[in-house]
């Protein structure tokens, strides 16, 4: 019997993903559990295993395509069946599948070449358009109607059945790492138009999610940013001393786990910063756990893996877990579980330099702590008449918070307390 395998519910409220790679071809013999496709979702890249064994009869998707939960992925003939003679070549990239009325399973959507071109121009997936023509033929009017319906619906990408235009033909473009730029345009006359004047790069899965989240947060949350400089000279001495005692450089501690630990200690004192505003019910939800997201610069863009229960882990444990998460983030192997559930976020831009920056809150969290590059700075202490000049290692920090939930004074108090803990590691120790 032929079985159609559809995109399963991937959990975490994920209802769409982009096919990164199709691992099987028509005619392949597959076993249960064998990976069929790699799908990139909002949250992670996952391998989709086959729930049954058999022979692949048809592959309904191709790399670059955006699929929704329930969309047919492959058709598999179960193993017990007598083996049919199989097509020698993979089927042409004909779209198949989602009940285009009248068209039998496996046939391309019935639509004229002009209609197909219009659909491409408007970014409409013909398989998701309700046909009005005889025999299930999709007309140009059907395509235009699908666009209109999508515009008036809340979630255009899903409800109206219209794939975002960027998810269509151009998707292939960024798959391959960019090649080296053109050689220097020595022969090009000054002022000659450089082609292309502009380049359109599709917002792919990750970028699209980042764009949506950032715009969402910026639009919803009145951000306040509170800046300060923290003297981490003592902490740095301690850190260096600890690392000297650790032979394996892979196990050396960075500043980040100390920052996490200090932040968690302060969050316990200021629970409103470890919270979420429930706009619908007009309530502030104070979280009972401390799941700290750490922003990681991955090749595909910003990802924020989450260190769960950071309050119950030692600095060494946090460091180990952070190394593993960062590694998975860079190789694109984070699971949806790895990136969900954060209650507060740390973004440490230090390695890249800069004097200061204003991070955007990882909505619906209330606050985000940023750290810049620590520098040796002259510090004057004492009174107006009696003072000493010393050189200290100063870490620029910034706390961005939701002014709906907390006020500026709260933010200042939060940062002051954080400063105290970081400036004197002994205080940090006793607050753990």
């Amino acid at each position, binding site marked *: 019997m032929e079985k159609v395998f559809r995109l399963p519910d991937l959990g975490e409220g994920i209802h769409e993903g982009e096919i990164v790679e199709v691992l099987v071809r028509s005619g392949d013999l597959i076993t249960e559990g064998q990976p069929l496709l790699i799908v990139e979702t909002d949250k992670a890249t996952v391998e989709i295993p086959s729930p049954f064994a058999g022979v692949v009869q048809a592959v309904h998707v191709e790399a670059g395509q955006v699929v929704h939960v329930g969309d047919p992925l492959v058709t598999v003939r179960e193993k017990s069946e007598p083996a049919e003679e199989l097509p020698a070549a993979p089927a042409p990239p004909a779209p198949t599948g989602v009940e285009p009325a009248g068209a039998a399973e496996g046939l391309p959507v*019935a639509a004229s070449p002009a209609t197909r071109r219009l659909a491409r121009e408007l970014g409409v997936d013909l398989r998701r358009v309700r046909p009005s023509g005889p025999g299930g033929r999709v007309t140009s009017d059907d395509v235009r109607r699908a666009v209109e319906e999508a515009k008036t619906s809340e979630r255009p990408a899903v409800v109206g059945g219209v794939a975002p235009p960027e998810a269509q033909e151009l998707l292939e473009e960024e798959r391959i790492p960019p090649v080296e730029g053109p050689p220097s345009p020595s022969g090009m006359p000054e002022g000659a138009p450089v082609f292309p004047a502009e380049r359109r790069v599709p917002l792919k899965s990750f970028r699209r999610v980042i764009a949506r989240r950032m715009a969402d947060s910026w639009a919803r949350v009145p951000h306040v940013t509170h800046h300060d400089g923290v003297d981490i000279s003592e902490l740095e001495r301690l850190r260096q001393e600890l690392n000297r005692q650790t032979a394996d450089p892979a196990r050396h501690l960075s500043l980040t786990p100390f920052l996490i630990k200090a932040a968690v200690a302060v969050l316990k004192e200021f629970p409103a910063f470890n919270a979420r505003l429930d706009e619908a019910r007009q309530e502030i939800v104070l979280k009972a756990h401390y799941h700290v997201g750490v922003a990681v610069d991955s090749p595909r863009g910003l990802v924020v893996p989450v260190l769960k229960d950071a309050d119950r882990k030692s600095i060494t444990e946090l460091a180990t877990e952070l190394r593993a998460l960062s590694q998975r983030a860079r190789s694109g192997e984070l699971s949806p579980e790895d990136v969900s559930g954060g209650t507060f976020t740390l973004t440490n831009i230090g390695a890249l330099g800069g004097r200061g920056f204003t991070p955007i809150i990882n909505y619906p969290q209330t606050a985000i702590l940023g750290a810049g590059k620590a520098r040796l700075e002259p510090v004057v202490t004492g009174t107006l008449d009696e003072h000493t000049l010393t050189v200290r290692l100063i870490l620029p920090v910034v706390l961005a918070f939701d002014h709906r939930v907390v006020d500026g004074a709260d933010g200042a108090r939060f940062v002051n307390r954080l400063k105290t803990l970081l400036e004197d590691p002994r205080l940090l120790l006793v607050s753990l």
Partner: protein
Amino acid sequence: MVMGELSQETQVAVIGGGPGGYAAAFRAADLGLEVTLVEEEPRCGGTCLLRGCIPSKALLQTAEIIWDAAEAARRGVRFPIPELDLVKLRAWKDGIIDTLASGLDRLAKKRNVQIVRARAVFENAHTLRLEGSDLTHLTFQHAVIAVGSEPLSLPGVSLKPNGRIMDSTGALAVHDIPARLLVVGGGYIGLELGCAYAVFGSRVSLVHRAERILGGVDDDLVRPLVKRIGGLFESVRLETEVEALREDADGVTAVLRGPSETREERFDRVLIAVGRAPRSRGLGLEALGIATDEAGFIRVDGQRRTSMPHIYAVGDVAGHPMLAHKAMREGKVAAEAIAGMPSAYDVQAVPAVVYTDPQIAWAGLTETEARRKNMAVKIARFPWGASGRALTMDAADGLTKILFDPESGRILGMGIVGRGAETMIAEGVLALEMGASAEDVALTVHAHPTLSETEGEAAEVFLGSATHLYVPQGAQGKTPPP
């Protein structure tokens, strides 16, 4: 770069001036891009124009005249035995090529497409090294590879220029009409050229390694051609391999191993037509990391981009079917993609035509393929014996058939054998592209008397409403709603 070398920049570099290349170059230029076309031969047109479609059709059309003149005796018209003036025939054929090739040059000039006569090799991802021209380097923002394919030979057989063992290029040059011609390969090229030479007076022997000619084409479409060449050729030997070919001063000795015996035979000339291979080697693709498959075809996506997204490949070098019209569409898609248009190669059916007499043409799903895939289809046939026009043309052995989706009546494929199939298949292709149903074709009025009626009537056979063919209700097709 060494001093004194001449270099130039272009937005779009097209490598190869065949149908895929010039279609890409012209479309890109029409869309406002600056285009340089690199062609290693003195004339554009590629295999199709210079040594393929066009010259072979010139010869086949000539053969058809000779054949028809002889056949006319049946209807009471007697012509004297025709004399073949090879010098004139060649000049006429070459004149057609000249006209079309210089036409391409003019079209290129009008569009400001610069043509550079050179061999191009990728030096890096944005530079072509040009061999054989004053211009030594061409840097580009986008490139379209359209270098085509070349005839395959038999293992151990190398072709000498003007030798007695020829490929299709040699056969199309028509050096002479050999008394005995061995054609190796029962594909469309071997059959077309074999037919032409047979009508011109050669005693043609065809050997084919498989058990039937035109592999993959439906049996009922091939049958009339098998019958024709049965009378026209001296012999057709299937499941026969060429073990050896020995060329000497006055002929070629061929060792032919058939299913029952191995024989040595003498021929005046041998035509090897065993297939074509993509010309993807020697372009420097490996160094760039542009992916090819096991057969040497460059891997491309729906826009005909290679694994390097600013470099495209179209035509024979980018995969089957190796047909000029497929290359031309691909060339246009590539040019439009370069210009930022949302184009895609999404054709539903590429028509195939074998220009033998009778011609065979098909598009979309074939019966052979439907069987192999175990697809539920309904097939309606309209034999040309029931067509008035076919009888006036002495073409009663022709056949038009259409494959339908049994539920919706949607047309899935069409096959035709008979004179004029080359033109008639267009209706089937349009129907396939439009997603047309049996009703759409049946309710379209076809001029009477024409061969195109057979297409309308085949659709009516499916619907049970054919006029010129009696199909018992329920025996074939479906009953119309009450």
